[in-house]
């Protein structure tokens, strides 16, 4: 749909990204106001977002977006000026409009056409917007009525009080005499216009205080062409209308005629005030002047054309000078606007300290840092072997710096979990409405950081769990009332770090999982037999079976039974796990455990027979000597508690003889703590995670590999999988 050179295409891409962020900001602000009530700061934020999108879309010639956003902006403008209240209905409408703009952007980005459904939505929203705007039309969309149509309204006087439509527009100036300088074009009569009718029409929006007809361009009678117009007028005009409104009067002759509309001096101060009140966004001088109403769009275009034309010699005449020279704006106003622009720019320097980086570049950097870590480990190793003290010291220093670089590089890839959570208020709100339930969302654990790629992959499963909890978990208001619970249900999202992983919880205060119902359904679906003895955990886990759904009614939200198994698959695909905790009558908690998937971890190196293995240091609690007298019982006593032991050589089927000296590494995962029996302990080292690939996916207990300082490959143990396998199999190795 758009054919652009690469530079423009890149700019367009940035526009899409920024617009989506703006729409997200808009949504956040709206949702916040829905709960906490309207505040002017957020209304301004919403307005700014819409305005920026409109402006940028205009630059790319995305007319549909401009047209739609413009209507949206009209409503927002009314809300901003307090003429219209921000009611829940309007919030819903504004949210839908935000979605709709996102829809436009998606379709433009993917080059797909605007289909019937979309256009129908377009019409519906525009209709709603118009309805919300109420009866007062906004000046900018009501074009000047052709003066010829209203010749009889000459006697009509202006309303004594300013019309509301004017008082709320940013360019309105309460009083003052405008000076209008008109030079009608030669072809005015031939174009079917009558200068007089414009003057009559002008009287409708104000009062002509004085008028001078200029006849100096009128030639001698013999040379005069009766069909040409030689007239000019200097008019002193009193009106509360803004400049754009006045300029609109001359809309039909603006092409052929010379029109200057200058405000009286009393208004210069008013403009300056308006300029000072503008929001802090980077605007061009012209934009500033237009937004306070001292300059019209047409005048700006004209001035810019002049600037371009005068640009031949490489000399760039400032726009301000042109505006003053062309009598479009008085000099003090231009000065004021320039000062404002300076302020805005300074403000932006503080705000724009973010940098967009391509994800691929970042990955490349992290990979290189990984190589650097390996190289640094080798360096330290050789330095230690050489026994030269200075070399050891400098190697240690390099290693320290590399560690800092590693942390910094990895941090670049991390995003706050709040970014994942931020779309949920909207989801919960919309789902709650669809379900007809009153549900609030509580979010905690912002500040927990996780890898960006992980964040992208966890959003969909989370979304599903939240919807599921709202649909199946939280009871209807009547039922909650009967149970003595608060009528408003609560879904909470929580995130935290735990033992080298991230935990994300979706909690609801609903009825909890119905153990009997799940079991009944599972038996009916032949997933289990009635004879099987199952623990609560095992029964809850049945809901992750493909095609399982206990909902009696299939709703829009959930109940088709396609979800939970996909949720589990998606979570397991990123090496995560999910467990369910449920208390009948009090609610249930879905706990997702994710690895940090950092590409570099602190590793704890151990020997098994002749091979080196890495245990992630974050899951190691302590190291002990193996109590030889325990023999093969499979447990040892640690501070009066039984610690189950896992003999790794036996787990991995090494045929080697038991080593002479053995050690126990106490590792923890969640609530379980296990002692891993290993050979020698080689100590801590930073290790770069290298994926082992598909071939080794099925090896239980090994998650990846790393490269040691001496170039050898060492497998990294998957502690959660080992513990899980050990405890579920109930094997005593």
């Amino acid at each position: 749909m758009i054919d652009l050179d690469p530079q423009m295409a890149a700019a367009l891409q940035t526009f899409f990204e920024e617009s989506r962020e703006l729409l997200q900001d808009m949504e956040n602000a709206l949702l916040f106001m829905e709960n906490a009530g309207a505040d002017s700061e957020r209304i301004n934020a919403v307005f700014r977002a819409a305005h920026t999108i409109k402006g940028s879309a205009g630059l790319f010639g995305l007319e549909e977006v401009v047209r739609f956003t413009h209507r949206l902006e009209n409503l927002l403008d009314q809300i901003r000026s307090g003429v219209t209240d921000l009611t829940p209905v309007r919030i819903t409408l504004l949210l839908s409009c935000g979605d709709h703009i996102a829809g436009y952007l998606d379709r433009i980005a993917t080059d797909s056409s605007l289909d019937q459904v979309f256009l129908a939505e377009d019409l519906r929203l525009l209709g709603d917007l118009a309805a919300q705007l109420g009866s007062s039309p906004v000046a900018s969309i009501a074009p000047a009525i052709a003066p010829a149509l209203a010749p009889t309204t000459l006697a009509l006087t202006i309303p004594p009080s300013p019309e509301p439509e004017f008082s709320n527009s940013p360019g309105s100036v309460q009083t003052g005499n405008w000076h209008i300088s008109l030079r009608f074009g030669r072809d005015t009569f031939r174009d079917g216009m009558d200068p007089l009718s414009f003057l009559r029409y002008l009287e409708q929006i104000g009062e002509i205080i004085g008028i001078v007809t200029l006849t100096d361009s009128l030639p001698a009678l013999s040379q005069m062409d009766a069909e040409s117009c030689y007239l000019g007028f200097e008019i002193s005009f009193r009106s509360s209308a803004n400049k754009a409104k006045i300029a609109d009067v001359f809309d039909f002759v603006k092409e052929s005629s010379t029109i200057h509309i200058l405000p009286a001096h009393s208004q210069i101060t008013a403009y300056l005030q308006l300029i000072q009140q503008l929001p802090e966004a980077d605007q061009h001088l012209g934009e500033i002047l237009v937004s306070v109403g001292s300059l019209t769009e047409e005048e700006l275009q004209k001035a810019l054309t002049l600037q371009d034309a005068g640009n031949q010699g490489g000399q760039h005449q400032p726009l301000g000078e042109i505006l003053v020279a062309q009598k479009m704006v008085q000099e003090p106003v231009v000065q004021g606007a320039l000062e404002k622009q300076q302020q805005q720019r300074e403000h932006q320097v503080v705000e724009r300290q973010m940098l967009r980086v391509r994800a691929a570049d970042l990955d490349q950097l992290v990979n290189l840092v990984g190589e650097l870590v390996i190289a640094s480990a080798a360096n330290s190793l050789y330095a230690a072997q050489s026994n030269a003290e200075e070399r050891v010291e400098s190697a240690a220093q390099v290693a320290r710096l590399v560690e800092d670089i590693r942390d910094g590089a990895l941090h670049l890839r991390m995003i706050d979990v709040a970014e994942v959570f931020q779309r949920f208020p909207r989801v919960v709100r919309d789902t709650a409405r669809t379900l007809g339930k009153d549900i609030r969302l509580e979010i905690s654990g912002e500040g927990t950081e996780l890898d960006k790629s992980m964040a992208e992959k966890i959003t969909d499963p989370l979304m599903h769990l939240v919807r599921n909890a709202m649909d199946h978990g939280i009871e209807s208001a009547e039922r909650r009332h009967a149970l003595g619970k608060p009528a408003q249900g609560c879904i909470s999202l929580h995130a935290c770090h735990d033992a080298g992983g991230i935990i994300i919880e979706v909690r609801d205060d609903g009825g909890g999982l119905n153990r009997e119902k799940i079991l009944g359904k599972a038996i009916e679906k032949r997933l289990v037999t009635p004879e099987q003895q199952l623990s609560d955990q095992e029964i809850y886990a049945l809901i992750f079976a493909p095609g399982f759904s206990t909902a009696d009614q299939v709703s829009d939200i959930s109940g088709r039974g396609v979800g939970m198994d996909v949720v589990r698959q998606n979570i397991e695909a990123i090496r995560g796990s999910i467990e369910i905790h449920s208390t009948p009558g009090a609610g249930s908690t879905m706990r997702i455990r994710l690895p940090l998937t950092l590409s570099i971890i602190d590793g704890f190196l151990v020997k098994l027979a002749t091979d080196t293995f890495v245990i992630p240091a974050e899951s190691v609690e302590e190291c002990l000597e193996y109590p030889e007298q325990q023999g093969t019982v499979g447990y040892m006593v640690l501070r009066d508690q039984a610690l189950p032991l896992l003999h790794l050589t036996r787990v991995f089927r090494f045929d080697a003889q038991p080593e002479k000296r053995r050690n126990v590494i106490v590792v923890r995962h969640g609530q379980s703590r296990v002692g891993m029996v290993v050979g020698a302990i080689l100590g801590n080292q930073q290790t770069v995670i290298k994926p082992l690939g598909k071939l080794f996916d099925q090896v239980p207990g090994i998650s990846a590999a790393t490269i040691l300082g001496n170039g050898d490959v060492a497998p990294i143990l998957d502690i959660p999988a080992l513990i899980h396998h050990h405890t579920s199999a109930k094997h005593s190795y």
Partner: protein
Amino acid sequence: MNMLPAGDGTAQVEHWGGQYLIIQLQTESFGVDITAVREIIAYVVPTQIPMMPTFVVGVINLRGQVVPIIDIARRFGRPATAIHKRSCITIVDLQEGESRQRLGVIVDAVNEVLEFSGEQIEPAPQFGAGLRTEFIRGMAKVANQFITLLEMERVLSLDEMAQLAAIAAGAAAGA
């Protein structure tokens, strides 16, 4: 890639003309499509990964990348390749769906690169080669002798090997 139907087999085989790296496995020579071969390196001792099927010897560090090493003789159901001083590892890049997979294959020797025209290549025999037919791309005739051209995508099919690995791991864990 699948077994070639007898009828249009020749038409298919013509397509396979090109350069082949001749590798030696024990006493037999095989041809490997040169476009899949990335490099040949001297033998290094791989790090064992526990609970893998025997044809997965382990992994090596190839300039910072962890590359699985396959004993192709074991994959063919023959005795393990004995390591000696001419042993080397042929690194191949295989297209597997969207991704490229890098694998190392232990060979007894790498002999030469031969060019075969389409006519020199005959379809795989239905039996008698001592290999699964799907592993064979065709038979190239050189000086009254046939060299088996391997279909490396099949021989080193990750899907199949991963399944075998899962079975091996399951057997080890379940025992």
